[in-house]
């Protein structure tokens, strides 16, 4: 059993509780043991690194130090924002100017750990082949849009995962569930980030065009891997509709929820009910219908 330190991050304790729940469920299903980092603290996010590089590094670094002390060599966090902070702490640890104060504050170095996102863990440690094998309730016939957000694969030198312009890992995982995955041009466009709070209209504009493109490509749902993206696209979808005078109704599930669903898990266990825009459309079983439609054709 693969043992991975789990850095939950603040969002997964609040507005993104369903991401936490479904992450646990999916990892368990694939034999990955998540070791929660004891007494973890907030990584500081953008506010911390806009204040001082050392603050950001030390806040995030403390969690890595605990993970290392817990005997883990890999740390996974579902939140790309947190991941950026964790990687930032590791970078600080390698920076000749910051290393000393960092180690003084945090108590040890943390550059030996491997830090990954949930998506990277699922893609590299589980992989589409294993997922395809484990699917019990294929999402055949559903058109799902993969949306990665800006930080998951960027900047490439730091993320060291997938392609910065056209990532495909989530595409492959979604295809493994049986879903149809169109080429989505806005995979890494910014959703409006934290401006939901301070500049609501930015989210209206930026998340709005992501939702529009989703609809344009016939997507039934837009699948995300970031709590902030999810909040902007889902929780604020009504605000966006108001802003751009549209009437979109696109569910925004997390990748872990979609995989869980395909594995045949109980939607409630995956926290599907917590999504603001109802994901009911995803529960339609089209496999049979498709099979019937294709059956005679295939025979002929």
């Amino acid at each position, binding site marked *: 059993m693969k043992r991975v330190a789990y850095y939950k991050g603040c969002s997964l304790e609040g507005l993104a509780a369903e991401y936490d729940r479904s992450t646990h469920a999916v990892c368990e299903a694939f034999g990955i043991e998540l070791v929660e980092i004891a007494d973890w603290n907030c990584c500081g996010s953008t506010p911390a690194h806009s204040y001082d590089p050392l603050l950001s590094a030390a806040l995030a670094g403390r969690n890595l130090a605990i993970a290392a002390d817990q005997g883990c060599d890999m740390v996974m966090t579902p939140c790309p924002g947190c991941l950026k902070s964790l990687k930032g702490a590791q970078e600080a640890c390698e920076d000749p100017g*910051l290393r000393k104060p960092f180690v003084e504050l945090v108590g040890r170095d943390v550059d030996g750990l491997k830090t990954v996102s949930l998506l990277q863990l699922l893609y590299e440690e589980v992989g589409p082949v294993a997922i395809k094998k484990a699917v019990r309730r294929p999402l055949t016939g559903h058109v799902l849009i993969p949306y990665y957000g800006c930080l998951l694969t960027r900047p490439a030198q730091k993320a060291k995962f997938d392609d910065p312009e056209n990532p495909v890992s989530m595409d492959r995982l979604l295809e493994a569930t049986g879903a149809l995955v169109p080429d989505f041009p806005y995979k890494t466009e910014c959703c409006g980030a934290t401006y939901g709070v301070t500049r609501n209209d930015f989210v209206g504009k930026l998340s709005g065009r992501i939702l529009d493109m989703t609809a344009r490509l016939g997507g039934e749902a837009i699948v995300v891997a970031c709590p902030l993206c999810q909040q902007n696209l889902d929780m604020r979808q009504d605000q966006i509709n108001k802003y751009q005078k549209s009437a979109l109704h696109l569910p925004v599930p997390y990748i872990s929820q979609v995989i869980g669903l395909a594995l045949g898990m109980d939607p409630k266990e995956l926290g599907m009910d917590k999504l603001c825009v109802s994901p009911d459309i995803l529960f339609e079983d089209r496999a049979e219908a498709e099979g019937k439609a294709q059956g005679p054709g295939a025979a002929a």
Partner: protein
Amino acid sequence: MERTNTLSIRQSRDTDFIREVEEASGQDVSKCYQCGNCMGSCAYTFAYDYPVTQIMRLVQLGQKDIVLGSSAIWLCANCQACTTRCPNDIDVARVMEALRIMSRKSDTVSLPDIQAFYDEFLRSVKTFGRVFETGLLPIYNLRAKKPFTDFDLAPRLLMKGKLTFFPALVKKRKKIAEIFEVVKRDRFSKDGKARPEPLSSKTDI
């Protein structure tokens, strides 16, 4: 900043500023040739007072006051599109971040409300060790004097059980507070030695 005035490039050129930006960001800004790729990539160009290409140009010219007083540096969401596509491998987002820190330091933050949100966020971290979303937003909105923002979201979130009313507390909050204090004491000095730097309460947490 009057954009109509003639810019006296020689007089307003602050070479120390160029050096400081390069040191803080670890980037060589002279590599920028203003191709506009960052501007074309940036999702927030529509909102910036100076598009990011021009921010880079202003840094090259050492125009400290204009740059540190610009709203662009505070509207940057750090989405890395500019950094990813820069043909000269400049980490532009990192330059923007360095400029934000410097504008705090020089007390020239052009968008106090964004800084206020960041500060509120950090206060939450400092107090609880984690961010208490349910608490953070109303407090910020109250301070920003727009208490009804996002009011529309509350009922649904309540119904979904997404709002929690008690902050989760980190046990070793003292350690977190200590990190803040040490960083505050040693701010902006890379070598970790204390550099006395009077900071107004407005620019600090």
